[in-house]
Every structure is written in C-alpha cells, then in structure tokens.
C-alpha cells in the first residue's frame, strides 16, 4: 500500500485550517519533538516516554520508500530533563515493516502491544498502486527486550481495514476502528472484550457514536472514558475529538472537546494522563500532522450540597381510622413480599425506589367478618433528584475505599464528567473510584459533575458532599 492509500485510510479527511482561539479551559502547545516537515500523530504513553506514528525518515531502516517518503513507522521519544525531549527513534526494528506501521497501544505494564500495519509486508508485495493490502491489527509481546510473538488480531480480514487499536488500562477490552460490513458507514468504532485469553466478537459502539462517516483513533483512559475522533459528528470542521463513556451500561452522547483542542482542522489521536488533566493530541492545524500537548485548568464547583439519604421506610396507616383503642378491627397489611404485617399502623421498608402495591384487609375482631378486603394502595418511591455518593460511611486508614457517583436519580440532565475531591481539590475521575485516606479523622468527600451542554451551550455543574469517618 502506498502512502497515498494510507492517507486515505487514516488522514484523508484532515485539512489545514485556521487555529481556533484557545479557550480558558485548556492550554495547548506543539511539542518540540514534532517536526514541521514530517507528520506525527497518535501519541501514547509508554515507558516514561511517548510512542507515536511518524513518517520521518530513519536511515536505520532498510525499507521500501515511496516517492514521497511518507510511510509511517512507530517511533519512541523520551523525556530530556524536566521539559525537553530527546530525538525520536524507531521503537523497535523487529516490528518495523517495509510498509506502514502504527498507531500502537500498550497494556498497563508495557509488555503487550497491539498496533496497526499493512497485512502484507513481503517486499514482493510492494506496489504503490495496490489498494488491496489493507491494514490489520497485530499484537506483539516484549520478551527479553525484544518484541516477539507477533500475531494477527483474531478478526483481521484482508478485505477490510482494522486499525487504530486502543487497549483499556486493565487490558480487558480493545477498541479499534474498521470499515468491515455491518457498521454505519465509513470507519466505525468497535470493541472486543477478552475472555479466557481470547477476544469476543466485535461489538459496534452503535449509532450514538458511529456515523456514516469516520470514527477512529480511540483512546481508552482510566475511569472508563473513551476518546475518539470523528468527522461525522457535529464539530468545528474536519476531524474533531470527542469523548464518551458507558454510564449505567449505556454510552453517553459524545461530548465535543474544548475548542482549544478542537479546531476546524483535523484533530485526532489523543492521549491523556491518569489525572485526565494533561495529555497530547494530534492535529494538522499547522499544515502537517503534529503532536500538541495540552493542560486543562483546574475545575471549581462553587457550591456543594449536602447529600440527603434516600428513605425507603414508611409508616402505613388508615387515615379514616379513628384511632380509638376500642375499635375491634385487625388490620392486615401486605407489601408484596408475602409477609403479613398486623397493626393499625405498620412500618415497612421497601428495598429501593420503584412502584409498589400495598394491600390492606381489615377483619372484624368480634365477628371475624371482613370489613375491608384487600384495599390497594399504589406507592411509587423515587430517589431524591440529586447526585449520590455511594460508599461506606466509615473506613480505615490506608485501606482503599470504593466510591461511586450515582447519577441515575438526576432528572433532565446527562452527566459527562466526574470530579472527585478528597480534600486536595477536584480531580477528574470516573464514575467509580477508589481512594485511601492516610490519617484518621473526618473527611468531606465531594463529587462534582458536569453535564452535557444544553440547547444554549451551557454546561451544568452539580456537586454533593458526603462525610466520611476514617478510624
């Protein structure tokens, strides 16, 4: 496959454009290892440095070069001092082909790599007019410092492209882009979960994410957030970066990233660190594809509400009951759980929100006759319209506690971002998060939430606090 066709697959929709004015939320700058002549894109963190794709010439390669010398290889760049970068080098010759390689993705400990490349890498296949040499996903294992055991992804198909793989941090899922049949048009995003060391069948992310154009360059970060690029979703032009995540087992509507990151050029191939505040992304806003770094401004929540506990326990009574002790009536209550509660006033705790049917039968104690038979009362319990921090109230020093932000009770807004404050300011996190307190005492845990933009483009903020005691 020639440089030309590779660009069609991955970059054809990228156009240079005017740089958008930076917003207050993010600061973006080009990285120093990104050249203005060659193309660099799809950075990922690896071994303290960054692995990315580039068509920079590397004389160490004995490879085929097309007429424009635009074949892409997987490069690795390491830090130099606190702010600088060393000169990028080919990541590993053993996984470098004479065709296009990359982008790549690594597991958390860095000994497993999945990457894209052309399926046929025999020199005899080199033909720049050959469009049949599709991209496939391959895995490699780092053993004794060498990437070996290179295997094609289970679902590679020589008729279609499978590219831009992205492993989740736990390695249990891989996202990728493909134009295989069954999608919504162009390149679609899919994922496979791993079970017993084998990947399940690909699952399309669905029409909320995929469009009839191209969705690709996924990046799965900590806390379940999935970043990706699309030129089909509404954006600023060209490819724009979005994120989504599965909340309550459903994908949220993709959130368009800040205008400092997105531009009317092509913006794609993003990676963020574990704080979700810093990272790198790819853009051709300066003509060639470059890797920019970004840093987000700390978010603040002006007011946080004390969380109210939901109550599912109620006392049931007959309002007409005259409350005279002399009334010889036996009140029998049922709450759908098969237990009969007896008493003119009974207290019952329901398992949670929902619709319940309460039934009352009144028996005449003197005659045994039924005064009222199975009189029904419909009770509908709803949780308080608030975000809710689900966690233990008491923990122990240095013992990890699990916190979950429950948003299902929020009516009318869709949550897109979770921020947690355990006493040191809000930091972006996932819907669920673990935290260990280092000292005994009483802590105030805050959960801040951002919603998707409303019709006026306004993002709502909600914040709740919960007291936690650490023994």
């Amino acid at each position, binding site marked *: 496959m020639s440089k030309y066709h590779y660009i069609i697959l991955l970059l054809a929709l990228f156009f240079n454009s005017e740089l958008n004015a930076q917003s207050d939320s993010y600061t973006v700058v080009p990285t120093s290892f990104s050249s203005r002549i060659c193309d660099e894109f799809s950075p990922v963190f690896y071994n303290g440095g960054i692995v990315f794709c580039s068509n920079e010439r590397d004389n160490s390669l004995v490879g085929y070069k097309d007429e424009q010398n635009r074949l892409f290889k997987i490069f690795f760049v390491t830090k130099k001092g606190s702010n600088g970068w060393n000169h990028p080098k080919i990541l590993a010759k053993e996984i470098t082909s004479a065709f296009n390689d990359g982008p790549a993705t690594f597991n958390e400990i860095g000994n497993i790599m999945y990457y894209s490349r052309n399926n046929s890498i025999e020199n005899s296949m080199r033909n720049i007019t050959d469009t049949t040499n599709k991209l496939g996903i391959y895995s490699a294992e780092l053993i004794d410092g060498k990437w070996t055991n290179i295997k094609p992804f289970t679902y590679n198909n020589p008729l279609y492209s499978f590219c831009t793989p992205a492993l989740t941090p736990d390695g249990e899922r891989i996202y990728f882009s493909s134009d295989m049949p069954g999608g919504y048009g162009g390149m679609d995003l899919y994922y496979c979960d791993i079970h017993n060391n084998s990947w399940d069948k690909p699952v399309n992310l669905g029409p909320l994410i995929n469009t009839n154009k191209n969705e690709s360059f996924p990046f799965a970060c900590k806390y379940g957030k999935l970043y990706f690029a699309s030129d089909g979703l509404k954006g600023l032009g060209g490819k724009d970066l979005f994120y989504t995540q599965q909340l309550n087992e459903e994908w949220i509507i993709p959130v368009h990233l800040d205008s400092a990151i997105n531009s009317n050029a092509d913006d794609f191939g993003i990676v963020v660190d574990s704080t979700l505040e810093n990272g790198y992304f790819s853009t051709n806003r300066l003509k060639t594809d470059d890797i920019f770094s970004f840093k987000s401004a700390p978010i603040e929540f002006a007011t946080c509400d004390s969380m109210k506990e939901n109550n599912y326990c109620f006392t*049931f*009574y007959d309002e*007409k009951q005259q409350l005279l002790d*002399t*009334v010889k*009536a036996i009140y029998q209550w049922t709450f759908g759980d098969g237990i009969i509660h007896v008493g003119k006033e009974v207290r019952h705790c329901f398992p949670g929100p929902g619709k319940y049917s309460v039934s009352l039968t*009144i028996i005449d104690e*003197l005659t045994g006759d039924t*005064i009222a038979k199975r009189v029904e009362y419909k009770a509908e319990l709803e949780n308080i319209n608030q975000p809710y921090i689900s966690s233990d109230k008491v923990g122990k020093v240095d013992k990890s506690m699990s916190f979950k932000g429950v948003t299902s009770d929020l009516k009318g807004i869709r949550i897109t971002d979770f921020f947690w404050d355990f006493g040191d300011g809000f930091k972006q996190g996932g819907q669920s998060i673990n935290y260990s307190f280092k000292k005994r005492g009483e802590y105030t845990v805050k959960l801040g939430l951002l919603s998707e933009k409303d019709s006026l483009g306004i993002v709502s903020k909600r914040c709740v606090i919960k007291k936690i005691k650490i023994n």
Partner: protein
Amino acid sequence: MIISFILIGRIALFSQSAPAVDENVPYLITFGGNAITSWGDDDFCQVFYCIVPPSQTDPVYIRVYDPDTGGDLDELKGEFNTIVNFSIYGGNDCWSDTTAQGLNKTGNFKSGYLLSSKSFGVDPKYDKKWYTFGPFNPSEGKYVDKLGGRVFKIIALGISGDDGNIYKYFLSTSPVENVPVEGGNWFTYEYHFRFSDDQKHVCQIYPFVDDKTISIQISNFDWDDDGTIRIFSVAKNGIFCDVSGEDNWIVREFQIVAEEKNSTIEIQFTKNQNVQVRNNNVVIVVRNQYGISMPFYVVPIGGVPVYSPKIRMK
C-alpha cells in the same frame, strides 16, 4: 331526589319483609299498653312505612306474621292479656305530616287516611300465621317523590295488657302468600325489635344519612348491656356506641364526614359473649344535628355500607 334515584336503581330488590333477611333482626315487638318500659319498649307503639314503587299498579297487601299476642313466640308476662292494634294508613298526610315522621306518639302520629285496622288479642288462629291487610290500591298511598314511590303507614299500637307482641311484616302482591313487590321497601324512625337469644347472633339495621347531616345521635333504649353496638359506614370501621342499661336511654353522637353523606350507615348489634341475656328487646333511634329523626330502611339505600380505608404513608 338522590334517595329516589337510589331507590329506582335498586328496583330489582325483593326484600319486602320487615325486618329484612339481611338485617338478621328476628322480630319486631310491641308491648301492651299496660306494660312497663323496662321490658324493652319505651312507648308501646311501632310505626313502619312501606314504599310501593310506581311500577306497581296492581293491589298490594300488608301481611303481619303472628299478629296475636299468645303462644310461644310472644313474650309472656303473667298470663296473656294483651291487645295490639294494627292500623294501615294512606293518603296525603300519612307520611308528610311532620308528626308522623317524629317519635312522639302523643301527637298526630296517626295522620293520613285510615285504610284498615284490626286488633289482636290471644288468638291461636293467628299464632305463627300470617294475617293479610288489603288489598290496597297503590294509589291509596301517598306518593313521595324523594322516597321513589307511594307510602303506606302501619302502626302497631299496644292497646292494653302487658305482654310483648312479637311479629313481622311483609309487603306482598298476594293475599295468601308472601310475593314481594319488586322495588318495595320498608322504613321506620324508631326501631323496636326483639333480639335473638343466641349469643352468636349478630344483627344490623341501616339508617340513611342525607346530605344535610353533619352529625348523628344514636339513642338506644333498654339494651341491658347485652353485648355491643357498633357503627360501620364507608368511613367508620366498627366504632363502639355506648349501650344502655335497664330501662334507660343512652345517646352517643358521631360526626358525619363528607363521604358518608347520602349514604347508609350500619348499626351492628353483637350479643354478649359472656353472659346470656334472654328476651332482650331494644329500641333504636337516630337523630341528626337538628334532632330530626332519621329513617331506618330495611333494604339499605345504596347497599350495605362497606368501609373504605384511606391508606396513607408517612
């Protein structure tokens, strides 16, 4: 108007005996005029009204079971010496005269046009047998729109003697058997009846509460502490009513809530489970907040009231 509507709606009913089967009241009772009230009759006079619906154009008969005072059904005091007179009244004033709707038996309670009358003493011919008054052309009764038919009045008056005459009525289309008048009913303003000797006995009577009522006073006479009296309605689930002792009245007031207006309430009588009281006769009266007596229908208007709890959660 509401009452008539309800009555018309219940036109298919066939309980024309008084007391009615559903009341489970064994018999009515009237003592001779020389009896003492402590035996369970405050005035030795019982006034009942029967309603003949407009659809009934053929003659009707008012039949009395065991009209004499003698035999083993009636209550003997010494030797039977009692005469009780049964009189049937029709015409315009038989019901509409305010005295007729009152409880005082010294005024013009015999208002209306006397249609038939007969006095009974000790007469085995009528012991545990039916005596038939009539025929009466329904048009001889007073048509009362709010009652949904023509009204006849029957007064059982203890003329002399001191025994208790125990009897019951039937509104019939036949002079020789009890053939109910479809849609007919009976009512009274002062219910004198004989309670069962069976300790498991439960009976109930049904006063109707109109839309002007905000409270009722239930008065019972000579209950002899024979068990309990309770009130049931759509809003009352067996509230105890005070019971009278020997030869006295006791009055208890109950508030009427909105949903009880224009409905029947039930006064239930339960026998004393611990001590057997025999030959207990009782008088029941219900008055509204103005002291106006309220009718007991033997067939409850709107049906037997069923308590409808209002479940709430807090």
